[in-house]
């Protein structure tokens, strides 16, 4: 903890340790596609506290990965651009910082694990080099020191024979082991926030469980804030504390994981939960959400979910729904949030 304090003081002057760890407020990201601005994230808002896990759930194209890249400050520009909102780390708005400060935040305070470790690791450098690079760049370590730290990290994430494996290249590892390497790399500088962007999507089911367990264990040990980005509600059920459901670039529901599973307050979340195969409904036809996610270039008017929604009424196609508190600490962006929550719809 004392080291954390020192680093924050050095790199983030004015940091308030009493403020929430990470607050994202009204974040907006646009992409230029053939001269036209297309919104990818339209006002995402959520909060992450220390030691907690927030699951950001949504279909492909819902803006969840772009949100994580915007938090890191690594959106490809061009074509992407963060056009509004705030990303506050310990109360400090990162979007207002200069590139040098943001660079220091990356790796030191916020780290990210990408979905496909094979393409996220450089094929031409040994994993030891790629992990050690962080110590050499941010801590000024020598090659030998960096290698020693890399071995320790590989050992911590459960890679057998780390001393030997440190000199191996990404293609010499299995999928699960490669994802462990990615995790080791993200942990290297002891960040306060870890963003895992679909960390298990590319893996076998058995390996998925191992990786999730490892993430959970590491989070408990280090008391990190973890953002788990996924399209699979089943994966997050036993690891997440809170859920933010994203649809068409905005957060449509925010609640604790218990509440979300028990009493969803948004028709989209409800539909998502019904689409999870369950043992007790074997033999029945699995429900699907009809229609396709909307094209961000031409969103429907009003609530973007209304063309696919079973509960939609006339006002859904004309009025944009506000964020409604359906219950304490349970918000939903639906005109009928309360009715959906109490199962009247």
């Amino acid at each position, binding site marked *: 903890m004392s080291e954390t304090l020192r680093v924050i003081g050095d790199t983030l002057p004015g940091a308030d340790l009493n403020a929430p760890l990470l607050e994202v407020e009204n974040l907006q990201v646009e992409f230029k596609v053939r001269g036209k601005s297309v919104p990818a994230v339209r006002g995402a808002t959520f909060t992450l506290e220390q030691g907690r896990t927030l699951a950001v759930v949504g279909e492909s194209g819902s803006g969840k990965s772009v949100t994580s890249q915007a938090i890191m400050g690594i959106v490809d520009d061009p074509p992407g651009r963060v056009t509004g909102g705030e990303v506050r780390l310990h109360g400090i708005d990162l979007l207002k910082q200069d590139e040098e400060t943001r*660079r220091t935040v990356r790796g030191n305070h916020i780290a990210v694990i990408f979905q496909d470790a094979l393409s996220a690791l450089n094929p031409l450098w040994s994993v030891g080099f790629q992990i050690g690079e962080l110590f050499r760049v941010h801590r000024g370590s020598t090659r030998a020191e960096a290698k020693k730290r890399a071995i320790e990290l590989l050992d911590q994430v459960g890679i057998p024979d780390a001393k030997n494996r440190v000199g191996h290249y990404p293609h010499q590892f299995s999928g699960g082991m490669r994802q462990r390497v990615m995790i080791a790399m993200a942990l290297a500088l002891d960040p306060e926030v870890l963003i895992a962007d679909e960390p298990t999507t590319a893996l076998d089911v058995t390996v998925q469980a191992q990786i999730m367990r490892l993430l959970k264990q590491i989070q408990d040990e280090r008391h990190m804030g973890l953002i788990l980005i996924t399209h699979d509600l089943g994966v997050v059920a036993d690891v997440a504390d809170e859920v933010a459901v994203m649809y068409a670039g905005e957060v449509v529901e925010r609640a604790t994981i218990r509440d979300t599973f028990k009493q969803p307050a948004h028709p989209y979340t409800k539909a998502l939960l019904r689409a999870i195969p369950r043992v007790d409904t074997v033999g029945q036809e699995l429900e699907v959400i009809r229609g396709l996610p909307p094209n961000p270039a031409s969103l429907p008017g009003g609530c973007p979910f209304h063309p696919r929604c079973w509960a939609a009424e006339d006002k859904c196609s004309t009025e944009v729904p506000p964020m409604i508190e359906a219950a304490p600490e349970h918000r939903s962006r639906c005109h009928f949030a309360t009715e959906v929550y109490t199962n009247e719809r």
Partner: protein
Amino acid sequence: MGRYVIRRLLQALLTLGIVLFLLHYLMALSVQVRGNPALLFFGGERTPDPAMLAQVERLYNLDNPCYERTGDPCVRPFIERLQNYAAGDFGTTLNGNRDVGELLGVYIPNTLRLFVFSTITLVVLAMVLGTWAARHHGRVIDHSVRGTTILIDSVPVFLILLAYVYIVAVPLTRWARGIWDTESFMGQVFRPNYNPDYPWTTIIVPGIILGSVGLATLTRLVRASQLENLGSDFVKTAKAKGLKQMRITVVHVVRNSMIPIVTGVGYLFAFMLSGAVLTEGVMGIPGMGRMIFGAVQRQETNLVIVGLTISAIVVVVVSLLVDLIYAALDPRIRYE
């Protein structure tokens, strides 16, 4: 790694052996079909004294009876020739009876100098232009770079050479000599033809012109591979690690982009050998290209075989180098 190198070396030697034999067989066929080049010694038309002809044939290793039988692969002369080459004996020319080894001592360095300049031009220009275009992807600079390089590449190299010699070189040389001394670097560099007193200076311009052959191909290769790597996931990871842009480019982009570029340079090197014939011809450089061309015209069997053998060795060695650089760059090849 060791096994990889040995395998590639053996492959290179095998390729070279096959090329040399095919070359020999083609020349043997041409002698068998078209007639004995030793006759040239007597000025073509006249019928020489059989005894003298026999002596000349012996002198130039053309006395083997296999040269009379169309289709005979002439294995014995092939082996004898290889033995002679190994001993450093490349024979003599039919025309003027000069020692081929001595001629090579003059021609090879000239062609090498030419290639030094053209390779540097090609690689440096393509790297700079390709990187520049990739950085400004989809914008005016990108389109101009691609347009210009294609324009340069679509003009045949001999046309550029002729335009240089007949239009640009003379006024440029006159202008340079008005300012600097005739004997100075600037006084010589723009000359329209080669000057043996300035073997480096007067080869720079022909080298640069020859280097423009394949510029478009290589520039596009550099551009494409840099774009691919700049947009790759591992560059995203590198950014997420908080590395500086400079370090990302040097450590994570350039090395990954080198693999297709090395392939391109190796391929274009072989391509430049044919360009050397034209460049050396137009600019009056006594080099290998001009030697081979003249040898073919004068039906100098021996000289043709020596010249093509050397060019085959160069191509095989360059592809071997390309393979070794691959292995040095990419662990996936090293540990295959």
